[in-house]
């Protein structure tokens, strides 16, 4: 088969595009839709309200390997009205799930702190579920200088 100049050119551009696609660095990352689907599944479809929960995270995280994050929810924490669980999601990580805190009336307060990994600059979302069926949400953007997911 004899290649014309035009065919040869189109072949080579195709090959370059293919190589570039294969070279996409790092693992596939989650996105905002995956996160909102996860939030929906967690809240059982209830409409989340904002204001009752505070999500604390640094505005700029230099090292994505350990980003401190804390949540606290205003709640009386009595046997019939307490915060059952708080889930944290990271929109730009390979998997959006970060952690689920389960509280009991014995917790006294619905607050917890941990350290998480963030792959890149992204939104962090916290969702709380109370024993009375209320759902609270809070969101914070964290700028990440060095990502923390290897790859």
């Amino acid at each position, binding site marked *: 088969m004899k290649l014309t100049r035009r065919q040869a050119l189109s072949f080579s551009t195709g090959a370059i595009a293919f190589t570039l696609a294969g070279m996409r660095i790092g*693992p596939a990352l989650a996105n905002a839709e995956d996160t909102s689907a996860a939030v929906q599944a967690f809240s059982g479809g209830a409409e989340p309200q904002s204001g009752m929960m505070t999500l604390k995270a640094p505005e700029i995280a230099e090292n994505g*390997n*350990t*980003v401190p994050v*804390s949540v606290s929810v205003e709640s009386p*924490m009595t046997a019939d009205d307490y915060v059952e669980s708080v889930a944290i999601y*990271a929109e730009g*990580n*390979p*998997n959006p*799930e*970060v*952690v*689920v*805190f*389960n*509280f*009991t*009336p*014995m*917790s*006294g*307060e619905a*607050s*917890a*702190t*941990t*350290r*998480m*990994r*963030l792959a890149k600059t992204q939104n962090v979302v916290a969702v709380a579920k109370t024993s009375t069926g209320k759902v609270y949400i809070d969101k914070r953007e964290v700028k990440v200088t060095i990502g*923390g*997911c*290897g*790859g």
Partner: protein
Amino acid sequence: MATAKPRVKVPKSASAGEVITIKTLISHNMESGQRKDKEGNVIPRNIINKFECFFNGTPVFSCDIDPAISANPYFEFTAKVMEAGTFRFVWTGDDGKVYDTEKKIALD
């Protein structure tokens, strides 16, 4: 990691009804399952996936952990103390290993 060592900070005593803060840390590398070794093979996931805290046998706090939690997972949370007793802390790993430790608290 064979040497996962739990460290827990609980006040020695509290007054009845006081809400205390508990800090816990366990040394564990929390292999996320996303990293690759020099040959390009994926290093299998091996993390602590569950942490629980009990007071005199009653659950106080627990969390379900995903690989997005940093190495040496650290948790800070609160507990309401009504009586003297013992806090028990349990970490469970993907590899089935269970690490636990206990701390006593007295009433003022």
